[in-house]
């Protein structure tokens, strides 16, 4: 299809030359941090917050905000890619590796459904959540994560489209089978690799 040329289109590349290779196909360079949320923004106090891992695990684990913050955290420099076409390059978050969290529960299934306050869900394979590829983060660029971006805590899975990085995260259920989460049931791709441009069901 792509021998088609849009008449008189030359493009206005806004991405600096040295960053161009970090932009997946169909994405554009965005310096802001747009907010996209399905439904109202939940209000979650850290005093009420907890993170729970259950389902097919050797032992269920539940951490309060205080307990969570005692875990070893790390700074995560990363690029993020939203399926609505913007990418934010060279940003950073701080949080706890999902590897550390899953060690507490010992998953026995190969899939997980991540749950959020407000009812949002997203599905990921354990493979996409482990080996230093996913975190539960509480800070963005040195500041507490703003509520509109998922504060107090959100999942961060930068190698997949950003809808997988669930805001207001409250836990994950380990499963022996895969199931679609919220956007995965509403038209977006089940896995969402931005480098393969897996945006929609049919991609």
């Amino acid at each position, binding site marked *: 299809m792509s021998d088609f040329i849009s008449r008189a289109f030359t*493009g206005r590349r806004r991405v600096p030359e040295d960053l161009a290779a970090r932009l997946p196909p169909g994405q554009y360079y965005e310096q802001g941090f747009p907010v996209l949320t399905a439904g109202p923004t939940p209000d979650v106090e850290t005093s009420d917050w907890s993170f729970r891992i259950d389902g097919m695990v050797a032992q269920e684990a539940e951490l309060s905000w205080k307990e969570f913050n005692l875990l070893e955290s790390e700074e995560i420099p990363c690029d993020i890619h939203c399926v609505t*076409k913007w990418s934010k390059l060279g940003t950073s978050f701080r949080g706890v590796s999902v590897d550390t969290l899953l060690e507490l529960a010992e998953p026995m299934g190969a899939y997980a459904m991540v749950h959020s306050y407000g009812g949002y869900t997203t599905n990921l394979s354990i493979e996409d959540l482990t080996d230093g590829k996913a975190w539960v983060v509480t800070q963005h660029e040195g500041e507490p994560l703003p509520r509109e971006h998922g504060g107090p805590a959100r999942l961060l899975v930068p190698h997949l489209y950003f809808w997988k990085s669930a805001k207001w995260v409250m836990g994950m259920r380990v499963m022996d089978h895969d199931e679609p989460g*919220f956007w995965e049931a509403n038209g977006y791709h089940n896995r969402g690799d931005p480098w393969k441009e897996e945006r929609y069901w049919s991609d």
Partner: protein
Amino acid sequence: MERLTAVVQRAPGRWMLAEVTHITQETPQVKSFRMRVPMWMPHLPGQHYDVRLTAPDGYQAQRSYSIASSPLDEGEIELTIDRLADGEVSPYFHDVVREGDQVEVRGPFTSYFVWRGEQPVLLIGGGSGVVPLMAMLRHRRLTMPELPMRLVYSVRTGEDVIYADELGDDALLTFTREPPQGWSGHTGRIDRSLIEAAGIDPGSAIAFACGSNGFVESASRLMLDAGTDAGRIRTERFGPTG
């Protein structure tokens, strides 16, 4: 073999060449583009299409735009596009595209911010956030004109009203900066009294709010306070769609 009927491909997601058949200047910054879509399939009001532009050197830019038309407009879609000054795709549509041009599109996509006939319905739009809501309003007018649906529409000035000629009793406007001369209706940001004036019972309503993040936050806050269940408030927030 030649006697077999050709199977029409109806896969959403394949790029195809649409032809722009009609362009409407809605406001100084907003135009609507009616297009004939070869592999058209009916959309749900609220869904979007992706568009893709390709430069001679292979460089491409993609954006998503909401459909403004009813799915009863068979074979066609209308995309309404706000011109963002520092954008890349919307200025191309505004400054270059003319009737008869071809544009690469694919869709329709996603099924969360969609109206499937639930009622009563309150639509709350800010600026060009009215676009997907217009698909719902138009579809209801064509299919179920008696169904209770009202649009609350917030715009800055009199000249910023998109679809101005089409808005009737089912739309309630408020002007946040400069109302048109002689305007005796609502002014200022959306508030509780405006939501009440819409006459849709918030306790049983399904609400669709679309606009900037700040606008959608206040719209959903107003609906929650009025008694609408969070699960019946569907939102769509603009990212930048330049």
